């Protein structure tokens, strides 16, 4: 059995990579992917603790998170497509004003 610290460390590394990706990259798609990475880092941590404590509530949480993430991706990708239609770019730094 792999000790839980390994999962936590992996999760933390993934999360940190996700954070860095969100903060550093300008491409909206990459940011999106970084966010997915952070979500999955969190999911990993949750299921790890779930197996440690023999509790299913963690796994139920993860399902919810995956479902919500899927919905979020759907909305986010739709927004990105629309932005690209108007701006011909998906650089988030160019989306600094509310006015289209």
């Amino acid at each position, binding site marked *: 059995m792999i000790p839980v610290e390994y999962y936590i460390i992996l999760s933390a590394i993934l999360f940190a990579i996700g*954070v860095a990706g*969100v*903060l*550093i990259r*300008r491409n909206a798609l990459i*940011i999106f992917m970084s966010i997915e990475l952070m979500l999955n880092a969190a999911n990993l941590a949750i299921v790890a603790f779930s197996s440690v404590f023999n509790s299913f509530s963690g796994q139920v949480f993860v399902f919810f998170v995956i479902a919500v993430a899927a919905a979020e991706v759907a909305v986010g990708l739709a927004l990105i497509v629309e932005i690209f239609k108007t701006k011909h770019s998906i650089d*988030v*730094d160019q*989306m*600094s*004003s*509310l006015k289209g």
Partner: protein
Amino acid sequence: MQLSETVHTGFFFLAPWLVFAPVIGLLINIIFGGRFSEKVIGTVASLASGASFVVSVLLAWSVAAGHGAAVTVPFLEWIHIGSLELDWAFRVDSLSTTMMLVVSGVGTLIHIYAIGYMHEDVRFKQDPGRFRRFFVFLNLFIAMMMILVSGDSYLMLFVGWEGVGLCSFLLIGFWYEMDTLGRPSWANSNAAKKAFVTNRVGDFGFLLAAFTMFWAFGSFQFDKVFEAAPGVAPGVIVAITLFMLIGVAGKSAQIPLYVWLPDAMAGPTPVSALIHAATMVTAGVYLITRSAELYMLVPQAQYIVAMTGAITALFAATIAVGQYDIKKVLAYSTISQLGFMVAAVGMGAFVAGMFHLVTHAFFKALLFLSAGSVILGLERGHHHAERAHAHGDEHGRKKGKHTLSKASGKKEESHDEHEVFDPGDMRNMGGLRKTMPVTFWLYMIGTLALAGIVPFAGFWSKDEILLDAKLHYPAVYVLLSVAAFFTAFYMGRQVWMVFFGEPRHEAAAHAEESKPIITAPLMVLAALSLLGGALNLPFEGFHQLGHWLEYTLKEVEALPLNLQVAGISTLLALFAIFLSWLIYGRNPLRAGQPDPLKKPLGFIFTGMENKWFVDEGYFAVIINPFKKLSQFLAEVIDWRFWHDWFHETVIAGTYNWLSNTALNLYADQKGIDAFANWLGTATQSLSGALRKVQNGFVRSYALSVLLGVVLILGYLIVK
């Protein structure tokens, strides 16, 4: 109890009608006079005054029937404050009824005369509408004079005193928009102002006397004051009597306040006769006589009063010698005769003073009214001559025309159109004996009475004063005798100049005699001037006036005729008349010739002519410094100091500084405004700062979220 008995037996209940009769007369003339003819207006006014006279006679009879007991007729409550009780009460005794008889008697005659006089005067002055106003004023004067003589307290007396002063002002300034010759000017109204202001100085003295009296006695009522007077320190009485003397000097035209009376001749002649010769100006003499019991307590004050009167008598008599205006001579004569009276009452010879007051009222009213008749006669003659010229000399009329104006047109002289004819100037007269015979004889009677020739009224009264003076005050006797000499001289001069010789002006040549309505009252006055001496003949068994007044005045001295005094005064008078004949009668004055006295007397005559420069002196000593002072006060103190400096600089400046600098700049702008602005700018800068956070860059938001999470987690961990 004796008092109430007499009230029931006599006519004392009529006393208020003394005042009401003339008041009703003036009200009728004010309200209905507009629809009345001149005759009706004059009749109403004369009847009102006559009613007063009838009441006076009834009151005098009642006093005599009651053996002279003084009666107080309470009429109205006036002022009641605490212990102060001032009522309008009439005091009817022998002294006040004497005054009432003189005032209403002479007053009624003058009312009748004025009907004729004013009828012509308003036409010469081209304003007949003022006829009514004149009689309203005249009735008001009678009412006020009655209040003066019938009041039961010094305060009631003062009410009348001020009232007659007002009437005097109104009547002197009757033709207020012209001078005595009818030219447009403020001369008449200035004369009225002068009279009023000078009298205010005197009234101030009267008020001080009244205040002192109230302080010392706690009452203004005659009897209470006289009762308490002996118990008060003599110094207080001296103060009261001397303050009162100032009032007397104002009203009765004594040195130093006499200057208003000659100017008061600006009023119509009946006014000069009634107010400024016969009645109002004698109010001061009445006041001293009324206050006899106060004056008797302080001989030093009596001496001052007597000397004031005597000096005034002589001083005014010398001025009268140098005057050319017929009324001015009589005005100075009045001052001089008032000096005689004041000297008499000052010496304690109250009966002599009152006697002279009565006879003087007769003969001086006669003289003034006759002078008015002369002036009217000359006006008529002047008109006559002017009309004759208008027909004969068309050119002269045309030349005269360009100076014609509304007011001065009637006085144009056809010889010299720039010189206005003065009907009152004795140098324009001469020879009126033939053209105005009635007036001449009346004037002669008045003159002889004034000069003090036996058996005219003036002789007896003046002689009594001289005799008293000789017995008690030799200095006064000398002064008065010299004054009597001058009196006879200036009256002689006047008669020679006016009635004898040849006419010096064509107006005098064409003078016409006055109508009977003017001469009839004069005849009554002439009879009184002739027989008035019988009131108080200085023989055993007579002295009627003395006995009559003895009811009111204690200790009356009945002096027998002193042949030495009488002889000296008569001889002096005759010598003076002879002297005046030598100078003015033997060689009558010719037109344009200067006064024959001018050469021998030189600068002395110039002094007399110019009233000893007293008016100029007053101007130099009092009025001009006063004007300078008021100018200084107005310009420097009030305007520059008070307005410019104090108000503008100090008050307005402080206020401006306070509002501009302190409140506006510091409190408002730098305090409240600054705070409000700071709130605004602070919010602005804060929002400016916050706006930088809200930059729209998604990644920076994400960074903030991260930082926030880190901070919260850090906090949770560290905690």
